[in-house]
């Protein structure tokens, strides 16, 4: 049995795998946090500035929408490289787990913002109208009606974003980002250690599965429709 493991997974350093998994978890967790913190307000503004919405602002909408589109249309692998000087400016290094977070957020926040905008648009206009008719101001409409009503959609958006961030975080291994992606590139790809590659991919698949399951449960829990 041990001999079999040795031949099949001779190159696998389990401690290394453990650390890399932890790094991936930290990268995804931190960048998800910042993506939500930055993406949620942008998504709300995109919704409010939109056509026939509460704070209709065609110019502001066009500018915000353009920035979001630019960030979303740059292939992530290029965004990783383009972001290097900003990342160095922001946190002093572009390497390791910390260095990977800014580019991952730059990719994740605009993505999440669009998902928030879409889920807010799904809220029945009648509910906004009813809340207005009660004498609510814009802030009360957003926090009292729009966000609670869109919550299941927003949670589903967070799940999708988290899964996207797993792949972004893995890709950041290319610029020395750390985590499972880094391991896969350095050992699995550059040193032809197929066993390492297989293990990292398997771990990423499990990670994504767990995220999706947790997200689906939360959506179900918060759905009242």
């Amino acid at each position, binding site marked *: 049995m041990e001999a079999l493991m040795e031949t099949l997974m001779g190159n696998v350093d389990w401690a290394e795998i453990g650390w890399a998994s932890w790094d991936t978890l930290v990268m995804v967790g931190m960048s998800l946090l910042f993506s939500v913190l930055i993406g949620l307000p942008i998504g709300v503004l995109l919704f409010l500035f939109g056509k026939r919405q509460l704070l209709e602002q065609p110019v502001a909408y066009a500018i915000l929408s353009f920035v979001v589109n630019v960030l979303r249309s740059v292939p992530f692998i290029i965004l990783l490289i383009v972001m290097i000087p900003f990342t160095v400016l922001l946190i002093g290094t572009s390497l390791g787990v910390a260095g990977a977070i800014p580019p991952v957020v730059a990719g994740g926040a605009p993505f999440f913002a669009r998902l928030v905008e879409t889920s807010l648009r799904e809220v029945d206009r009648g509910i906004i109208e009813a809340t207005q008719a009660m*004498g609510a101001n814009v802030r009360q409409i957003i926090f009292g009606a729009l966000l*609670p*009503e869109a919550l299941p959609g927003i949670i589903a958006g967070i799940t999708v974003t988290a899964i996207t961030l797993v792949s972004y975080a893995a890709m950041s291994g290319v610029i020395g980002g750390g985590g499972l992606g880094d391991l896969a590139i350095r050992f699995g790809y550059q040193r032809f250690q197929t066993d390492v590659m297989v293990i990292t991919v398997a771990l990423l698949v499990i990670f994504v599965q767990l995220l999706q399951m947790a997200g689906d449960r939360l959506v179900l829990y918060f759905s*009242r429709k």
Partner: protein
Amino acid sequence: MIVFDQVQKSYQVAGRAIPALHPTNMTIETGEVFGIVGHSGAGKSTLVRLINLLEPATGGRILIDDEDITRYSAAELRAFRRKVGMIFQHFNLLSSKTVADNVAFPMKLAGIYSKAEIRSRVEELLARVSLSEHANKYPSQLSGGQKQRVGIARALACRPTILLCDEATSALDPQTTQSVLKLLGDINKELGLTVVLITHEMDVVRRVCDRVAVMDAGRVVEMGPVSEVFLHPQHPTTRDFVFESENIDRNELQEDLQKAEGRILRLTFKGESTYKPLLGSVARESGVDFSILSGRIDHIKDTPYGQLTLSLVGGDLEVAMQALEAADVHVEVVR
């Protein structure tokens, strides 16, 4: 009192102003149930939303108790809206809040009520609309009629003086419609609040309204007490609505009338005269023979009425008509 003084509303579509409401004058008295009836697209939805300025007017003045609400600042308008309850065709309840939290919502938004006040008011309102045992359910667990009753409780939460009903019964089945209309009528009587109700069903108007305005293509084409408008419709649109509500096929009716002999009269009985044994005695006195071509006995709000179409042969027609009119029966000569 709600006064519309040359109020108009138009929408800008591709640079052109499309009128939704032509300049309109109208007065709705305090404490009455005022119906606005019209086909979809006639402008009734716009009209009702002008009363709380969910749709801003593009001209004219809207006076609520002598204050011109079109001049209100944003903050004044929000304070004013708390005194105007509104219920909707599709209820527009928040699906993420329980029944009790939906009813509490306008009070929380107002920010002037204590938690204890809100709790006791919600209990009181839910009891009033017979939903106490559903307080902790979510709207999706309720039937349409129950949802609308939550809507009514929510609309009443901040003790409004005006209640706007936007097609409030159009999504409900006939029985539920009846119970919701009864609730609205009771609330109007108990609280003395002004109810403005828009609908495309004349039957709804007949059951609860005191006065009615009929709208067609962005204009009020007829307005008056429901019994007047309902029993003696003048405008073609009003006639359509009345015939529709009575399930009368106009072509069929014409054919029936053509087959009948002699003079054809339409008699309208209202109030007390509805129950008098009049026709027999009139026939004996004047010597006319009559046959009934169509008839209907019903109520307009609380007033009973009857409408009969008769063909009369022989005898002294003049005497018959005088006797009928003397007994407070409205006589219309159809042919």
